[in-house]
């Protein structure tokens, strides 16, 4: 048993009104039973007196929410990087800058090559 603290008569007088409160024997018995059950292994938790079934529902809902959030986040991040890669690809194709500061012509495509050949066959200078 610990010692009582140094007394301040005025303070003790003020708080005296609280001190006559005592637990009933029923309350003590209830606390003892709960402790005995906890010591044995499991005990009811007063603060969250939820049934095992509602705990299971809560777990399922919580897991579903977490999976949903993770999937949405994955989708958004995936879409962002796909878009970014596509933009980078286009930039590489169309925005190559020459040393003189001019933007270069896009590389010739197969259609351009065919057109050039056709022009040559038609008369060399296209006339």
């Amino acid at each position, binding site marked *: *048993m*610990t*010692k*009582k*603290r140094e007394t*301040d008569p*005025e*303070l*003790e007088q*003020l*708080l005296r*009104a*609280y*001190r*006559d*409160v*005592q*637990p*009933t024997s029923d*309350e*003590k018995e*209830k*606390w*003892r039973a*709960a*402790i*005995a059950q*906890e*010591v*044995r292994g499991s*005990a009811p*938790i*007063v*603060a969250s007196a939820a049934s095992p079934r509602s705990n299971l529902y809560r777990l399922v809902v919580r897991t579903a929410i977490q999976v949903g959030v993770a999937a949405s986040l994955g989708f958004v991040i995936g879409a962002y990087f796909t878009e970014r890669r596509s933009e980078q690809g286009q930039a590489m194709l169309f925005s190559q800058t020459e040393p003189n500061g001019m933007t270069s012509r896009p590389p010739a495509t197969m259609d351009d090559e065919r057109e050039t050949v056709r022009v040559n066959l038609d008369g060399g200078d296209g006339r």
Partner: protein
Amino acid sequence: MRTVDGIDWNEVVEDLGPALLRYFLAAGFARASASDGVQETLLRLVRLAKEGEYDPNRGSPRMLAFGIARLVKHEFYRKVGEHDLYGDAKEFADRADSVSAFAPGESAASSDALFAERQSAARLREVIGMLEYPVREIFFLLIDEELKLEEIAGILSIPVGTVKSHVHRGKEKIKLGLKEKV
């Protein structure tokens, strides 16, 4: 009752139960909720002991118990809202008058003296409820005669000197508050 690490839980119930009950009642809990608060605090103490984290040499069991009780109280406040307990002075006074200090089945008007004493307890609860943090919390803890000022400082993580000055100023405010009530 079986013991965990040699702790006699019957003794813990006898020693800490009444003090914790007064603490929860002072904090504005209704009698049944206060009793549940004590039970929850004691159960968490047992769990700490089972996990090997309850070391009487590291601090007094009393200090640890009140630290847990504060946590349980805050969890309750979060659930119901502290404002609901202290926000409306009249409502708090009514609640204090009608419930807390009396055991179920007790008659408040069994004698005039007893009735007057309980009325003053209700007024005191109301006045302490109006104090600001941490003064209010210090007075809740002071209700337990065996909790030292050093332990109260430890529970609230503030210097002992601060506790002393809060006690001094709090006393004056309580006296003033009680005078106004009368």
